[in-house]
């Protein structure tokens, strides 16, 4: 075991190295670049024996990953924002062809206006691509989730996207515990995968799925991601037993007897927790629930942990222009809709394009949730910190 000072991006690179990947295909983009920069160093100096493919675009990066994965290779790539958007069509091929690719997506706002700072619009635009999505809040979590991602992906034959907030997680240096190489290899051993291309088998891959077949093939992806819940739970459990840090679909903070809560995703969670802790000292029964696994969405956990609360605020770091609500709110509301009684839900948008969301904003969000419960009616989405 080693303890190193690493940025979130370097933590990801170390996890990829320790998982002993075979192929890396990537194109640089801010704020992801230092992940693949570090990996290219590892490959160049012989610390990692892998094929490092320099491609001309993210579309090609993901295409190369799909091809490599179909031969049974362990594959990694990383991207952000415009790069993820440029991969868009290939993301659906990666899930449809059942390639267990692991990708770090360092969350960054989508243009226009051009912006290299953090929000979640890139990943939210790809939520229907059939990828498992994990979300982290620190460099250690980034390391751990990346390791887990390889195991989950290969267990269910679906690609996994590990999301870390641009700059806030990606470029902040934190102490990261690196487990022993042997323990990691035991956790993610290399293994043969089903239906891969090989000189031994005359397989056709990437075939046409006419109306008689497409529906069934698509449903296989739906079924696989539904069933991945169980596998993800197993992987989380094994990770905990092996490395001493256990993860769940959601992170709960002071939720046991909470009456009001904010639902967050990614690095905003840290500030929300600090504010909740302060409010607790003032006697307010508040808690924070952060989503670690966005796909598959933690339906059971949301119902169990939020169902009986008085009021819940959902903080989206992305918008759905023209929609009835924003992405995370929509998921939480839909999940709770099936339940007869549910808390009052208030939608918030905050932190777009890297706008800071200070503690005072969280304090006012907690206050607003309490207000709407008192008023007995939610307000239209509140855009926190927006200048008029």
């Amino acid at each position, binding site marked *: 075991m080693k303890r190193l000072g690493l940025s979130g991006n370097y933590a990801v690179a170390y996890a990829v190295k320790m998982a002993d990947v075979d192929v890396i295909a990537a194109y640089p983009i801010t704020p992801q670049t230092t992940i693949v920069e570090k990996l290219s160093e590892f490959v160049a100096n012989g610390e990692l024996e892998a094929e490092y493919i320099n491609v001309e675009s993210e579309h090609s990066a993901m295409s190369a990953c799909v091809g490599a994965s179909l031969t049974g290779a362990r594959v990694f790539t990383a991207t952000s924002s415009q790069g993820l958007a440029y991969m868009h069509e290939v993301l659906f091929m990666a899930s*449809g*062809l*059942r*390639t267990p690719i692991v990708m770090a997506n360092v969350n960054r706002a989508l243009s226009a206006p051009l912006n290299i700072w953090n929000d979640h619009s890139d990943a939210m635009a790809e939520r229907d691509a059939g990828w498992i999505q994990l979300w982290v809040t620190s460099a250690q979590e980034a390391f751990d989730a990346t390791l887990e991602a390889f195991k989950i992906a290969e267990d269910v*034959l679906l690609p996994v996207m590990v999301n870390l907030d641009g700059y806030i997680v990606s470029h902040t240096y934190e102490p990261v515990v690196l487990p022993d190489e042997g323990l990691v290899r035991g956790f993610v051993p290399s293994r043969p995968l*089903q*239906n891969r291309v090989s000189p031994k*088998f*005359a*397989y*056709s*891959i*990437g*075939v046409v*799925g006419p109306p*008689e*077949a497409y529906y*069934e*093939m698509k*449903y*296989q992806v739906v*079924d*696989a991601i539904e069933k991945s819940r169980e596998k993800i739970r197993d992987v989380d459990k094994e990770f905990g037993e092996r490395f001493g840090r256990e993860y769940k679909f959601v992170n709960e903070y002071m939720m046991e007897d909470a009456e009001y809560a904010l639902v967050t995703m990614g690095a905003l969670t840290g500030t929300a927790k600090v504010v909740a802790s302060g409010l607790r000292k003032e006697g307010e029964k508040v808690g924070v629930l952060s989503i670690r696994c966005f796909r598959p969405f933690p339906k059971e956990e949301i119902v169990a942990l939020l169902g009986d609360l008085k009021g819940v605020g959902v903080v989206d770091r992305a918008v759905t222009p023209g929609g009835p609500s924003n992405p995370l709110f929509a998921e939480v509301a839909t999940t709770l809709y099936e339940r007869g009684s549910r808390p009052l839900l208030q939608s918030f948008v905050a932190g777009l394009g890297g706008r800071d969301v200070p503690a005072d904003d969280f304090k006012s969000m907690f206050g607003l949730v309490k207000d709407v419960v008192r008023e007995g009616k939610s307000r239209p989405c509140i855009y926190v910190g927006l200048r008029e």
Partner: protein
Amino acid sequence: MSRLKGWKEIPIGGTIVEPGSSVEFDVSSWRTFRPVFDKKKCTKCGMCWIFCPEGAIKINDDGTYDVNLSYCKGCGICQKACAVKAITMVKEG
């Protein structure tokens, strides 16, 4: 035509694990018109066989031509290619 496979039976990722399985793919239902061959007019030139984009034309033992309706999509190219008008496109019932 064999029964179509359900989602539990299809190999994952839509992978085709048996080579040459496209011969099992029946396209009869795509067709609106079907070519009918007049053996008496046929000069055995083979133009229909050459032009058929689907390889659906078969050669009879006597050297005349006919169609394999499992693979014929009814495009009518064979009819246009036939110099002696031995092929008629007939609407499917």
